[in-house]
């Protein structure tokens, strides 16, 4: 899987999006998106609520079909590829969903172990061991036999991460990882994301609107602008704060305080 140095594969970006247009029926969500995600970076997709961030993520992981344009992983076409190619690419993903999406009829160990049972020849005892390891990595050692409904929301998110990294994926997708968590739990999750990038060497795509997370972990980002249905800004989040001339991006990154200051209020 890992390309040898100097091969053409290693030059290709991890993810490349060309002319992607997303729509539900006649309603266009975003049109003609172009961006690349470099290897080993934490790439943030930000934007206000309802602008299509999560929809973009669903397109990236193949749950929705784009109306136009294509998505490439390491230079390999994904969008209109045959099912075998798609399956191979999907196998390199790990996805954490907004609602954690743990399978509620299974214990945490079974949740983490399911992908291992399906795609490896490990024995049940070995699978259990790996599942325990992954749970310990996210700080949930000892919770193997709990059901998802028996643990807190923050722990569910972390268990979701443990499941996402079960097969040592090369690309991790996080959909609003810190939404609904208290500041401490959010911070812990941010640290976990940084740790995963450094230890697994994974490329990480995070969809979020939490400013603290964006500034803490983002290497690169795009801002989806609901008004123009396109990318409003791109770059390193901290540099973007000083450079952008798009008022909506500035407003987003400063929690709208520029407007409040102009109004002379609050």
């Amino acid at each position, binding site marked *: 899987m890992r390309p040898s140095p100097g091969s053409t594969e290693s030059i290709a970006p991890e993810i490349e999006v060309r002319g992607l247009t997303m729509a539900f029926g006649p309603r266009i969500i975003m049109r003609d998106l172009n961006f690349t995600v470099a290897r080993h970076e934490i790439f943030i997709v930000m934007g206000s609520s309802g602008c299509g961030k999560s929809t973009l993520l*669903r397109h990236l*992981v*193949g*749950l929705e079909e784009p109306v136009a344009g294509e998505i490439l992983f390491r230079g390999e076409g994904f969008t209109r590829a045959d099912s075998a190619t798609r*399956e191979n690419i*999907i*196998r390199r*993903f790990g*996805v954490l*969903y*907004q*609602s954690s*999406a*743990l*399978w*509620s009829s299974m214990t945490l160990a079974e949740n983490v172990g*399911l*992908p291992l049972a*399906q*795609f490896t020849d490990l024995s049940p005892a070995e699978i259990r061991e790996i599942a325990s390891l992954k749970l310990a990595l996210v700080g949930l050692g000892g919770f193997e036999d709990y059901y998802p409904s028996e643990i807190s929301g923050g722990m569910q998110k972390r268990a979701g991460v443990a*499941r996402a990294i079960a097969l040592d994926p090369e690309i991790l*997708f996080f959909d609003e990882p810190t939404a609904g968590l208290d500041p401490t739990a959010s911070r812990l999750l941010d640290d976990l994301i940084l740790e995963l990038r450094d230890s697994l060497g994974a490329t990480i795509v995070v969809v979020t609107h939490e400013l603290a997370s964006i500034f803490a972990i983002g290497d690169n980002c795009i801002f989806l602008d609901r008004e123009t249905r396109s990318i409003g800004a791109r770059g390193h989040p901290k540099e973007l704060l000083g450079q952008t001339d798009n008022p909506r991006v500035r407003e987003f990154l400063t929690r709208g305080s520029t407007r409040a200051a102009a109004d002379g209020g609050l």
Partner: protein
Amino acid sequence: MALRPVAEKWLEARVNETDLAGLEIERSDSNQLVIRLSGVWRLHHGMPTANRLKPQLISSPRPSHVTVEASRLRAWDSSLVNFLAGLTRICNAHQILLDRASLPEGLNRLVELATSAPELKEPRATTTETLLTRAGRTVLARLEGFATYVDFVGLVALALGNALRGRARFRKIDLLEVLQASGADALGIVTLISYLVGIIMAFMGAVQLQQFGAAIYVADLVAIATVREMGAMMTGVIMSGRTGAAFAAQLGSMKVTQEIDALATMGISPIEFLVVPRVLGLVLMMPLLCLYADFVGILGGATVGVTMLGLTLNSYMQQTIGAIWVSSLVGGLVKSVAYGVLIAIAGCYQGFECGQSSSAVGEAATAAVVNGIVMIVVACGLFAVIFNLLGF
């Protein structure tokens, strides 16, 4: 004058609540109107609306200035905010200057919030369509729905093919759970319904057949009807309401919590993982349940025969065995297998097509039961024709 919140509270505490809301209108000169508010404005005292003042505001000569005066206002709640918001809207629409300066500051702020321009720039389209357009849309949506249903059936067929070759990815424990839930757990309700249906058929038949002194033929009637049709159909209806609805609700809520998406992005086919064990489980259990329902239904008939018609159990059973042909029995079991497939697919399909809310899960469960029962009845009719042609 603006009241400080604390002072206002203190004042309210001492307000005599019987001091009802007052509204006086005074026309000082031809283009000046003064509205005097007084007393206690409370929702439970009733809600005066600004529309009542509309005739006075827009009748000619139309006032150019309206002043709201509130020196005798004692206390207020949303009823006054609503009244003033309505008044503001009327005045804005007819270019009348409205002076609310004498109102309490908090009240003015609420009125401003209520009348400020809405954030939503493109309001939801509420065009009224003609009957023809709506009918056309409905038909197109139904056709599209049918196409996705056919698509789904095809995917399930492929997945079942994989399963028969031992290549489908699903957990054996899931299959066992479906066998338990749609087999052993359903015995109670199947017993009750089949026994009662047997009694009813025997009773209906007995009333007629006794007139000809042919009471013993009640056994034939119950046996043939149960084995050929009613056993399979009643089991199908019960399982549609019990298991089909459960499938739709389980898969629907898994859709809402993105658990199905999680399977898909894990490279595991949700159809193989979730639908195959459910279809297989129900299809394996349906003929067994049907056979059991046949037996219990005949027992129900025998109960009537023995207790009401004075037949012996032995003669009733002899007559029953003579009436049942193997082909009828096999036909009933074939039908029950087909009903099992239809119910399981209807339930799973509705679950997969479920929307993103908790009410959508309820709708999916309802649709699963309705579609399941409709398909059972349609299939029953088709079987009648086919068996007739085959000479069964």
